[in-house]
C-alpha cells in the first residue's frame, strides 16, 4: 500500500506531502486543485511497483506511464509553471512486508525519461484506478481498440479493462472474497458475470440483464464486485477512485460508503477524491462507528494559496479545512434565510 507521497513542483503543487492511512483516505477540494492529479500519481507509482522488474528501463517506463495516464503534450508539462527553472520531484513510500521507496524527478523540457533516485525492488500488489466514467458497458473490444488505435482517453480506462479481463477466482480465495461479494450482490440484485466478452448482471430471480441496460450508478458498483470476485482487489492492494459518487442517488451513496469501509476493513487501501458533502459525512460517520474495529480513515483538504495548492490532513472531517462543499451548503441556507425574511417583511408591510 501507499504510505506517503511527497511532491515538489508537480502540476498545481509547489510542495506537498501526503501521509496515507492503510485504510480509507478521502481527498477533498474545489475543482482544479489537483485531486485527480494526486490520485493518478499515486496510481501510476503503484502500477509501476506492481509491474516492476527492477531498474531496467524504469526511467522510461515511469515517464511513459505518466504521459499515458495524464495525457499532457509532453512529460515536462507536468512541472509546475512559475518563475525560474523548476524540476518536478516525486518521492513515494510503499509498505508491504518491507518498506519500499521510489523517487524521481524531471524538468520542464523532459520528454521520455526521468532522473531516478530511489528504485523499486520487489514486486508490489495489484492496484486499481476507477476513473469517473464507468467502463463495464464499454468494455467489449475496448482493450484491443486502445492497443491498436490512437484514442484520446487516458490509460486508466485501458488498465481497468485489463483487470476486468481476468477470470473469476476459485477455491479458498473466492470463499474469502464472498464476504464482500454478498453485501454487494444484494445491492446489485445479482451477480456480475462475463458472458462471451460482455458483462451481464445475473439477476437473483428473473434472468439476466445486459450491462448497458443496468443503471449507470449501479454499473460502477458492479465493476467493484467483479474486481473483488476476480482477485484484482486483494489485501495490500490500493484502490484509487475518482469521484465514486457520480451517478449515484444518496440512497446508494450510503451503500457505497458501507462497501468502501468494508473493503478497507479487509485490508485493501482506498484513496478517493470527492465533491460530495453527503458522501464525506457518511464516510466520517461510518468510520466513527467502525472505530472500535481499528478502522483508520484520513482526510485531506486541498486549498489554493499564493504558493500553489496546500494540503491539510486529519483523521476526521472536523480536523480539515476548507470543506468547500460544506461552506457552499451553509451559504445556500443563508440565502434561503435572507429570502424568507425578505418575503416575510415585505408581506408585513403590505398588510400594514
Amino acid at each position, binding site marked *: 500500500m501507499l504510505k506517503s507521497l511527497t511532491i515538489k513542483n508537480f502540476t498545481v503543487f509547489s510542495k506537498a506531502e501526503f501521509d496515507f492511512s492503510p485504510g480509507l483516505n478521502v481527498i477533498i477540494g474545489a475543482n482544479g486543485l489537483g485531486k485527480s492529479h494526486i490520485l493518478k500519481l499515486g496510481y501510476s507509482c503503484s502500477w509501476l511497483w506492481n509491474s516492476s522488474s527492477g531498474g531496467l528501463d524504469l526511467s522510461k517506463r515511469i515517464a511513459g506511464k505518466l504521459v499515458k495516464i495524464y495525457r499532457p503534450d509532453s512529460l515536462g508539462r507536468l512541472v509546475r509553471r512559475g518563475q525560474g527553472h523548476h524540476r518536478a520531484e516525486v518521492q513515494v513510500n510503499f509498505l508491504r512486508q518491507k518498506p519500499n521507496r521510489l523517487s524521481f524527478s524531471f524538468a520542464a523540457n523532459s520528454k521520455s525519461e526521468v532522473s531516478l533516485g530511489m528504485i523499486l525492488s520487489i514486486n508490489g500488489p495489484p492496484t486499481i484506478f476507477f476513473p469517473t466514467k464507468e467502463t463495464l458497458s464499454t468494455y467489449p473490444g475496448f482493450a484491443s481498440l486502445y492497443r491498436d488505435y490512437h484514442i484520446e482517453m487516458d490509460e486508466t480506462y485501458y488498465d481497468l479493462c485489463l483487470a476486468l479481463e481476468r477470470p473469476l477466482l476459485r477455491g479458498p480465495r473466492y470463499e474469502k472474497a464472498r464476504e464482500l461479494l454478498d453485501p454487494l450482490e444484494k445491492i446489485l440484485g445479482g451477480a456480475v458475470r462475463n458472458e462471451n466478452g460482455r458483462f451481464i448482471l445475473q439477476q437473483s430471480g428473473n434472468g439476466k440483464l445486459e450491462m448497458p441496460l443496468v443503471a449507470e450508478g449501479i454499473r460502477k458498483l458492479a465493476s467493484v464486485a467483479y474486481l473483488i470476485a476476480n482477485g484484482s482487489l486483494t489485501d495490500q492492494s490500493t484502490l484509487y477512485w475518482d469521484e465514486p459518487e457520480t451517478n449515484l442517488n444518496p440512497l446508494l451513496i450510503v451503500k457505497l460508503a458501507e462497501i468502501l469501509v468494508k473493503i478497507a476493513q479487509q485490508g485493501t487501501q482506498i484513496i478517493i477524491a470527492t465533491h460530495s458533502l453527503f458522501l464525506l*459525512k457518511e464516510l466520517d460517520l461510518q468510520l466513527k462507528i467502525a472505530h472500535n474495529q481499528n478502522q483508520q480513515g484520513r482526510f485531506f483538504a486541498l486549498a489554493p494559496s499564493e504558493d500553489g495548492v496546500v494540503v491539510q490532513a486529519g483523521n476526521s*472531517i*472536523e*480536523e*480539515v*479545512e476548507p*470543506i468547500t462543499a*460544506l*461552506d457552499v*451548503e*451553509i*451559504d445556500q*441556507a*443563508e440565502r*434561503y*434565510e435572507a429570502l*424568507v425574511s425578505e418575503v416575510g417583511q415585505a408581506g408585513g408591510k403590505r398588510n400594514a
Partner: protein
Amino acid sequence: MPDVVEGKLTFTFPNSWQVVKYDETSFYKKHFQKLGASRCVDIVAFETEVDDQLWLLEVKDYRQNKRTKTEDLFLEIARKVRDTLANLYLAQRHEEADCYDFAQLASRKQTIRVVLHLEQPQKPSKLYPQVVSHTNAQIKLRQVVRVADPHALFCEIAKMPAQCQWTVTSK
C-alpha cells in the same frame, strides 16, 4: 441549584457545579471590556467534585434575536473562546479579582469543552427544516475551535447531548 438566565433560556446546573456569567464579572469589565472587540462566552462552568472538564458555553437564540451570518457566528465563537481563556488565565493570577477563586479552580481542569447552544425557529420548509443544520454546524464549530476542543458540542433544547449535565428550559 445554580441557575443562569440568558434571554428566554434558563440553564439549570446540578448543585455540585460552579457557574459564572463571565461578562458580568468586574474583572472582565475592568480589564477586558475597554478593549472593545474583546468579548467572552456567555457561561463558564465546571463540576467541583468528579468531572475534570471546564465548560465554555455560548448561547444564541435566533427565535428572539437577529441572526448572525453563519460564517461570522463561528468566527465570533472562536474569538470568544480565545478571550475567555485569556481572561481566566489572567484572573487566576490576580488575587484581588472577584472571580479569582473561580478562575483558580477552573484553570486546574484538565479538559476544555466548548458548547454552542443554539435555538432556531422551525422553518416550514422541506429542504431547510433548520437554517443551520445540526450536523453542518457541529462540523464548522469543531473546525474553528479545535485547538481548544476538537469535540465541541452543538446543542439545542430538542437535542441535548448526554455529556451536558445541565438542563435548559425556555419561557
